[in-house]
């Protein structure tokens, strides 16, 4: 955020598109994140659990959203970051992360902005809905 004084409600600060999610991404993320739940990497386990295939870790999708967020906002200014996992993210999904300023306010002696965040797949389906609070 270069000119934080100019920020106002309605501004879209965040927009980033990520490459499609592959089985390889899920395998790497399983190791990189410490989340070893087999449902994300073992198709036999996923099918036995009633899913047609493996699917992305919610936290992988949130990590992409976090990356889009700190591309736009220096990490030292991030105060709060939350998401709701709205729908399962399938293999091959190409995710778009966006964030818009909804409110400017003062808290804990600093000026802050609240951002509304979304992650959609390439069909336009919402996968994550969230918010962030950043110091200006």
């Amino acid at each position: 955020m270069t000119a934080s004084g100019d920020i106002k409600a309605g501004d879209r600060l965040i927009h980033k598109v990520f490459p499609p999610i592959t089985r390889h991404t899920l395998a790497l993320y399983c190791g990189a994140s410490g989340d070893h739940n087999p449902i994300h990497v073992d198709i036999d386990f996923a099918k036995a659990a009633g899913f047609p295939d493996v699917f992305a870790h919610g936290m992988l999708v949130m990590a992409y959203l976090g990356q889009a967020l700190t591309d736009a906002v220096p990490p030292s200014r991030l105060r709060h970051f939350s998401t709701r996992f709205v729908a399962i993210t399938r293999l091959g999904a190409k995710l778009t992360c966006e964030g818009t300023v909804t409110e400017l306010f003062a808290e804990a002696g600093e000026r802050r902005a609240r951002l509304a965040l979304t992650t959609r797949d390439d069909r336009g389906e919402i996968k994550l809905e969230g918010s962030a609070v950043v110091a200006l």
Partner: protein
Amino acid sequence: MVDQSAVGRSFTPVTAHVEPGRLRYFLNTLGEENPVYRNADAARAAGFTGMPVPPTYLFCLEMMDVDDPFEMFTALGIDLARVLHGEQSFAYHAPVLVGDTLTFRPRVTSVTEKKGGAMTLIGIRCEVTNQDGVHVADTARTIVVRNEVAS
């Protein structure tokens, strides 16, 4: 099925080390190229005294260094195949840097039944402190359990 008796239950605290090699693997997996996470000078210029971690990495640290990553599910009798992640939040109070040793103290804060018992939502909160006793963050997650419902 998990019921109200689980509320207030805490689990073994987790001590986690922020190791540079493991962090680099995480950054590479995500295609994270922001120099603030990769370059000491860029991190310093961004106001950090060391290399910071990305916003969701706290969740990973807790899972990576726990002795039994699914202790909570086992203790509460939850089948891993029936678990989905419903919500996740992080409140950041102080920087978390490469080289830090963090302590996570997870506890169950709520149990809510949904859709006539078809789903149970379990709220888990976790206070995170560093090696100097600084309260660096609070995390909260909601776990969704898809219950087996007799038809």
